[in-house]
């Protein structure tokens, strides 16, 4: 929300000055100003949110428990330098691409599906899971390559995966309970996010192929990366340190 903040601060300023044009000239540069607006981080709701807040806290960017429990969708950290906004995973790239949020924390699955044009400087290693192809246990997918039906929440990943292999597929887009589709005969297989694989097993499905690994990523808006360079470099450095510690441990 840096745009909004900067507009507001200008209005305040203008109120105290005679001429709007002189206020602009004397207005301290928004790029080099020490009283910078908050750095906004959009975080995917759900499991990612818990893991991301824990990681941020270890990196020294902490929101009070009271704030976290409050169910508010936009909260500030204790230092007053950061704002977290909690949005649906697929909306994280939207907020960040438009620069409304400077940074975001979201799974690689979402980035692959939306094809968002963002910087992805850091793999946070949180919310680890995989994007897999699954089918009913014992089902041989190869025997049916002529016209395979794939049910998925990830039509774009599915299209590019099968497209690259020259396998024609009918993609059936669902928005949830994808595991039901092969059970009820809506599709031959599914392409979905798998964490432990328990849901698959419980529905009589088995993992056929892992298409990609997915973890939580820190993403950054291209303009913010330049315009808020210092603040973002600082965040990257402190998060990077924690992530590396995790890898070495």
């Amino acid at each position, binding site marked *: 929300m840096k745009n909004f903040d900067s507009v507001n601060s200008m209005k305040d300023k203008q109120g105290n000055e005679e001429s709007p*044009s002189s206020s*602009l000239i004397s*207005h301290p*540069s928004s790029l080099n100003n020490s009283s910078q607006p908050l750095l906004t981080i959009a975080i995917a709701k759900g499991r990612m949110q818990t893991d991301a807040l824990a990681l941020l806290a270890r990196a020294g960017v902490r929101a009070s428990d009271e704030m976290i429990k409050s169910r508010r969708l936009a909260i500030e950290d204790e230092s007053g330098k950061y704002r977290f906004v909690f949005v649906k995973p697929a909306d994280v790239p939207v907020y960040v691409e438009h*620069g409304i949020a400077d940074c975001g924390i979201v799974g690689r699955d979402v980035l692959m599906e939306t094809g968002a044009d963002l*910087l992805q*400087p850091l793999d946070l290693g949180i919310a680890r899971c995989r994007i897999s192809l699954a089918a009913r246990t014992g089902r041989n997918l190869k025997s049916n390559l002529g016209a395979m039906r794939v049910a998925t929440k990830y039509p774009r990943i599915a299209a590019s995966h099968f497209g690259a292999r020259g396998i024609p597929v009918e993609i059936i887009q669902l928005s949830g309970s994808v595991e039901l589709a092969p059970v009820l005969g809506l599709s031959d297989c599914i392409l979905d996010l798998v964490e432990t694989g328990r849901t698959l097993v419980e529905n009589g499905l088995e993992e056929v192929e892992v298409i990609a690994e997915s973890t939580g990523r820190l993403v950054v808006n291209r*303009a913010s990366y330049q315009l808020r360079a210092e603040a973002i470099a600082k965040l990257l450095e402190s998060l990077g340190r924690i992530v590396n510690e995790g890898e070495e441990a």
Partner: protein
Amino acid sequence: MFEPLSKIPDGLRYYFGAEARLRRQIEDTAMTVFDGWSYEEIITPTVDYFALFERGMGREQAARAFRFTDTDGRMLALRPDVTSLVARAAATLFGERERPLRLCYVAPVFRQQQQSHVEWRRESVQLGCEFIGLGGRAAEMEMLAVSAEILERVGLKGQYRITLNSVEVFNGIAERLQLGAEAREVMRHLMDIRDAAELRRFLAAFTDSVEDCAAFSRLTQLTGKREILIEARRIITNERSVAALDALEGLWRVIEALGLTDAFEIDLADVSGLDYYTGTTFKIYVAGAGARVGGGGRYDGLISNFGTPESAVGFVLDLDALTDVLTRQPATLMNGSVSEPAITQLSNDNLATLFIAAREKRLKNERVSLGVKSQG
């Protein structure tokens, strides 16, 4: 299927009122600045052969053009880019003219597919200039100075940042690692999204030197002022890249002398337009816009498509993006000066009297609004 005529095609829009006035003002400011630096306006055709853009922009970019066929069956396109048209004119119409050529333009470009979700428009107006026939730092510095002046004059002083790089930094490294076309594209992509960890893993396949992997992946983080060049020199030793760093340092010295270091930044990880640009590149960002509002660079390879090879450098600013930013910042200088001058209301039942009065006001350049009744 019934399609109401009220529907506007995706990515197109109207401008009116204060926004249209502001947009015109930005355009006039830019054209005045161009004129002040002796750039001559060139007005190019809106429609031209697709083949021209394909050669000029590269196949991938040109594929975004709206295309249709001419009466003789040849493929035409709505201009997706102005530079290709200017480059052709430089080689043909201006072939005999003394160099350097300084040309500027304001023109809409049309592109079917957006590259990012933020690029909503399919028609956008480019304010641009091209400096043709002279290589080296002076021409590049002129581009930077002209763009900075436009941004400051429209009221964005202290709110813009221009990043500098040279495609030769990347090219030198890719050459040294002997990357094939595919690997080169992977490396470019990982640099572009600044995924240092993944880049380090990827490069391990191309070099035995662990230091090289770490060093080159460090490039993704080299964004900053002059100190970036010092660090880069420790990492990069191949001749081609070092020459590019020398050139950047030369530009930076001038930027320092102009006191513009706050507004500029060196960004060695900027690797877009690798197959188009041949040297220095720059990108222009403005607070309040989520994507860049302009950019440019050296494209010495382009004009040879139309005749003899020639040095060229240019940049564009996106008028629509600038209008968006300034519309949302009511306190800027630009908006202050766009406030509407007073209007004199005139009315008279006698049309002759009314229009005589109106003409008098207009001769004094006053704004009038006539209370005209419908008289059949």
